[in-house]
């Protein structure tokens, strides 16, 4: 960015890396905006946050944030972040990554990180496909969707991410969309302050991938997020998701359990 004026978020972003790589209308920029604005509104110390991501379009998010940040391998953001969270409990560890990264190749790490209640916030961009590799179907793609690797329509059942994460033991579970910017920001603020494994699914349009496949413009995709969503306070198992008809969104779980780090420190105190 060459503009002489100071951007209101310039302390929070790596301005020398903007414009970012994401396509026109891609929801990832909105997620990034919500994240840094949440940090700003909480007046958090940028030196004490580590932003970690895996590989994919969403995985590029860590590269734009002015905190310590790490772009790991595909699917491994969570174990990497676990290493930080355990080693440096004084830092806030945040993972921003994609649905494929966190639930396909990295799915095993996700359920175990939630089970252990490792103290970290996970922001998962769900765009219903593997955006970066060209919109192939993945673990969130609705049944019957045509993609380059499911030319006759996907024959696999998708995960319900919030139900899966909640049943694995996460202590905070929410689902919002990039259209719901204020709710999203508030959920991120809550997650940043929360002790424990916190998970926010953010439905986000992949405009050139999923959008083009479904013959939708970016604006139509955003309208759908406005019109097909219903805010409800339900059990995550009931938070159904079908992008073409109805997506239940909201804050579903918020409980307090001892974190892995807290239990470990107790154990250390006893062992000594």
């Amino acid at each position, binding site marked *: *960015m*060459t*503009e002489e*004026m100071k*951007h*209101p*978020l310039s302390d929070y*972003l790596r301005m020398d890396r*903007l*414009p*970012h790589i*994401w*396509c*026109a*209308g*891609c*929801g*990832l*920029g*909105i997620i990034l*905006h*919500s994240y840094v*604005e949440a940090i700003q509104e909480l007046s958090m110390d940028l030196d004490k946050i580590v932003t970690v991501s895996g590989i994919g379009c969403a995985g590029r998010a860590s590269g734009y944030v002015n905190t310590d940040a790490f772009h790991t391998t595909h699917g491994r953001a969570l174990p990497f972040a676990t290493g930080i969270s355990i080693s440096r409990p004084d830092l806030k560890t945040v993972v921003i990554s994609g649905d494929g990264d966190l639930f396909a190749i990295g799915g095993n790490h996700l359920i175990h990180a939630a089970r252990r209640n490792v103290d970290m916030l996970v922001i998962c961009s769900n765009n219903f496909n593997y955006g970066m590799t060209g919109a192939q179907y993945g673990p969130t793609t609705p049944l019957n969707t045509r993609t380059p690797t499911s030319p006759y329509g996907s024959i696999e059942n998708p995960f319900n991410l919030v139900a899966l994460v909640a049943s694995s033991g996460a202590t905070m579970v929410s689902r919002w969309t*990039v*259209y719901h*910017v*204020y709710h999203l*920001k508030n959920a991120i603020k809550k997650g940043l302050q929360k002790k424990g494994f916190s998970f926010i699914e953010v439905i986000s349009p992949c*405009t050139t991938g999923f959008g083009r496949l479904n013959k939708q413009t*970016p*604006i139509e995709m*955003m*309208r759908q997020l406005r019109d097909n969503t219903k805010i409800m306070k339900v059990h995550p198992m009931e938070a159904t998701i079908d992008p073409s008809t109805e997506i239940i969104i909201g804050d579903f779980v918020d409980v307090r359990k001892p974190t892995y780090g807290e239990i470990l420190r107790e154990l250390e105190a006893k062992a000594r």
Partner: protein
Amino acid sequence: MAKQRIKLIKQLCKGCGYCIEFCPNNVFEKSEEITERGVTPPRIKNPDKCTLCGLCTRLCPDFALIIEEDEGDG
């Protein structure tokens, strides 16, 4: 207090049109311009209708809309 206004940072805009579509007060419209990146940025057609709610700055995926102090240069 200095007056504030919405400002477009043109070189960050990718022309998605979300601001035009979702501004509750219909402040933006499509321009005829084509920027260096080959996109059509929005134009502020109704500056007086802007309540500075900031929704467009948050829905803009590209950090291209900001609220800044109005230096009165029109």
